[in-house]
């Protein structure tokens, strides 16, 4: 971005200017990795971003939120990373994995997909837009963003440069997890990570998305991921968000679950200063199932604002949501969930629960667990609890020589670990478990 943009005093550096619009129309001939139709879509998305008003305090999808935290003025486009090799070496996850894709500041740094089974496609998005145009057009950001961040999804689409595209064909099982790393580097840098996963009929795959900061500096992340499960597919999707502690982040997720398919998604939020997470699970096929799980150890001044929708369109589907928040210091959480059972979605079995563990007198937890039921033969329950650590448990440990501060950490660890029991894969469970313990400062 040039100096000229600053002079034109736009509210943030993501809006277009007349000059840019002009440039965009003439630069067509220049080599772009993206096809023209996609760039047209991006231009439309930018116009959409600009035309959509910023969220207001009175907007119901932003109730209790921190509108002031959404100020984008300080952020700028990310430059190249200083050391590609350094980031590639730092991208360490599981010991055994089937493929690895590493992005740094909106650029692909590394792709290792050699051990993927025949037919499985893992490639950067721009490549997919040309080589798998049909799939790309069908699934890329195909779901309208309904939970409040439409504006930021439009910004994401307009400013996206790359991302991960995974296609697992029919009847294919990828035994080992696929790992994706999205790095951000530099003060006030902006990244637009994207993950698009299409699971063909009866396929099976596990994907871990890592969101990391290489230098711990404040950044802006605006990410979208689209997960599509065709009939009988099984997807385990894990997002580990570990941006710098004062970063602003949007993570907009939509999961479409087809007949008899099963999605298990875990989101762990270890970083970020203000994180807005929107997760939609749409159950479009009979017998489909979606598990939505989240682990949020919150401390300092960090805030997390999570909105979820369990959208039951088809009958005989089930969904299960469990969000765990631990709030220390002046942390603040917002959970607004909705179970929506459409007309005719009979035999729905939906469950939703948020648990807030209050660890400090300054913390604040807001819970809005909602239900909208338009079919009668259903079983839906939801719950929200806010409480503190059981003094008796602490006393029990103290009486056995465990210091109170350690005891608290152990209880916290147990609180989060309970959620991992939902994972079938033992190495995955162990890996996440280690990550949680590390974050809580427990020596393994």
């Amino acid at each position, binding site marked *: 971005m040039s100096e000229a943009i600053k002079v034109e005093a736009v509210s943030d550096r993501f809006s277009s200017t007349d000059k840019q619009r002009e440039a965009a129309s003439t630069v067509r001939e220049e080599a772009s990795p993206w096809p023209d139709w996609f760039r047209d879509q991006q231009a439309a998305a930018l116009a959409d971003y600009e035309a959509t008003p910023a969220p207001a305090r009175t907007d119901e999808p932003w109730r209790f939120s921190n509108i002031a935290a959404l100020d984008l003025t300080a952020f700028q486009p990310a430059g190249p990373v200083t050391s590609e090799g350094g980031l590639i070496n730092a991208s360490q996850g599981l010991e055994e994995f089937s493929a690895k894709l590493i992005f740094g500041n909106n650029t692909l740094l590394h792709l290792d997909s050699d051990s993927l089974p025949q037919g499985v496609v893992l490639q950067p998005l721009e490549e997919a837009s040309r080589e798998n145009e049909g799939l790309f057009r069908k699934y890329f950001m195909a779901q309208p963003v309904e939970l409040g961040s439409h504006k930021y999804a439009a910004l994401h689409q307009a400013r996206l440069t790359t991302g991960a595209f995974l296609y697992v064909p029919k009847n294919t099982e990828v035994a080992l997890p696929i790992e994706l790393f999205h790095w951000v580097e530099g003060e006030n840098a902006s990244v637009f990570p994207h993950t698009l996963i299409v699971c063909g009929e009866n396929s099976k795959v596990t994907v871990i998305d890592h969101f990391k900061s290489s230098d711990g500096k404040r950044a802006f992340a605006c990410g979208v991921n689209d997960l599509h499960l065709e009939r009988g597919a099984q997807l385990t999707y894990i997002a580990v968000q570990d941006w710098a502690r004062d970063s602003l982040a949007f993570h907009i997720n939509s999961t479409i679950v087809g007949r008899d398919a099963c999605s298990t998604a875990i989101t762990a939020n270890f970083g970020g200063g203000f994180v807005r997470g929107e997760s939609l699970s749409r159950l479009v096929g009979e017998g489909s199932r979606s598990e939505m799980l989240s682990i949020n150890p919150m401390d300092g001044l960090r805030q997390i604002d999570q909105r979820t929708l369990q959208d039951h369109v088809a009958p005989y589907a089930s969904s299960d949501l469990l969000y765990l928040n631990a709030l220390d210091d002046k942390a603040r959480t917002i959970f607004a969930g909705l179970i929506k059972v459409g007309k005719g979605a009979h035999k729905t079995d939906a469950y939703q629960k948020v648990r807030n563990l209050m660890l400090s007198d300054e913390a604040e937890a807001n*819970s809005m667990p909602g*239900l909208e039921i338009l079919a009668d033969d259903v079983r839906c329950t939801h719950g929200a*609890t806010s409480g503190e650590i059981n003094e008796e448990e602490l006393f029990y440990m103290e009486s056995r020589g465990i210091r109170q501060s350690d005891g608290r950490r152990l209880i916290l660890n147990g609180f989060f670990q309970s959620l991992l029991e939902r994972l079938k894969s033992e190495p995955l469970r162990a890996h996440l478990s280690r990550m949680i313990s590390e974050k809580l400062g427990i020596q393994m």
Partner: protein
Amino acid sequence: MSTATQTEIGIDRSVGDFRYDVNYEFDAGTGLSAKTIDYISEVKKDPAWVREFRHDAYRKFLEKPMPTHWASHDLDNIIFNNIRYYLSQGTEPKRSWDDVPEAMKLTFERLGIPEQERKFLAGVEAQFDSEAAYSNIKAAVGEQGVIFVGSGEGLLKHPEIFRKWFGKVIPTGDNKFSALNSAVFSGGSFIYVPPGVKVKHPLQAYFRINAENFGQFERTLIIADEGSEVMYMEGCTAPKFETATLHSAVVELVALKGAKIQYVTVQNWSPNVFNLVTKRGLAHEEAEIKWIDCNIGSRLTMKYPGVVMKGRKARGEVISIALASDGQHQDTGAKMIHAADETTSNIVSKSISVGTGRATYRGLVHVPRHLKGCKNNTECDALLINSKSRTDTYPAITVRGQGNSCQHEASVSQISAEQIFYMQQRGISEGAAMSLSVNGFVNDLVQQFPMEYSVELKRLIDLEMEGSVG
């Protein structure tokens, strides 16, 4: 059971569906303007501060947007200019039944008011459109110093108590409809219970809309002084008109140290009534406020009784039953504001949606910073009868700091097919089995209602369930 209770307080729809032509002595005409407010003030001989209060409220009403960003868009069907804001036959309520004009007497006799009074009520007030038509309190209760009069009389004769609390629990600008009420309020009850007085029998008010396109805006203020106890019951009916009718009341309760107030509502407006009511109580130290709220009638009800627990160990409770039948939307809930240590609140809500009915629970629980030992428990259960029925739950719970506990639980289910089958097997018809099952669903709450009401409620559920099968 049903025949024996025919003459009880009428909350059965058909009982309320009649009207009489009445020649109103005072009529503010149709539509709302500053002039309407002046007219009401004139007729009611308002003191200057009340007139000022009304005009200020009217300005706030105009400023406030319709809350359709979260509430039902059906609200847009209220045309404020088509409503009549004040109708009465005189502002002085009659003390003796014989003095009540014939047409009104017929109305209330059909609804069983004097009968009730003879039986067990400590006092009764009956409001016909804008003003109380009849108000009486039993001598024994009056001797204890209990004041039970219409709100207009309250503000004129007991300004020292009235003014101190009026508009303090629910500020004028709380919402668009509380502002509207504050601008045009008329009628409602004013009750003051002196320290230590325990009113044995319930006080009762009866609200009746008789005229078409009429808006009823009663204002009730109840003050229970230290250590006193009182129970208040209200019922409401209106005939079925083709056009929309508006009922927008404001009810403020103040329970001083150690006092107890129970407020029972059985709302059975006809299905053309928009029922948009703001109800809130202020509980001081160790005081207890309990709202027992039953919504059966109206087209759209929006009502979230609240308790602000201002003193240590104060307690708030809302027991809510909603029955949403064809074409109805019962948007009800509760608001619990914890503002002192060791305050506890309990919300139990049960709703039933029948036919195209929609029942919504909307709740707010707030525990601010630096409080200790606050507890909230919320339970909402919804029952769906038909495939077209709808139910929603929208709670919002804010907890700041540790040392408090809040839990919210809600469930939605259908009537158990097994239960119905079991009963049918034993020769009970499907309809009767459904009634039994629904009655069983709300039974634990219904028992908290005064006996007369609970019997009626059961009977009403039976009626509503008739023909709902299939």
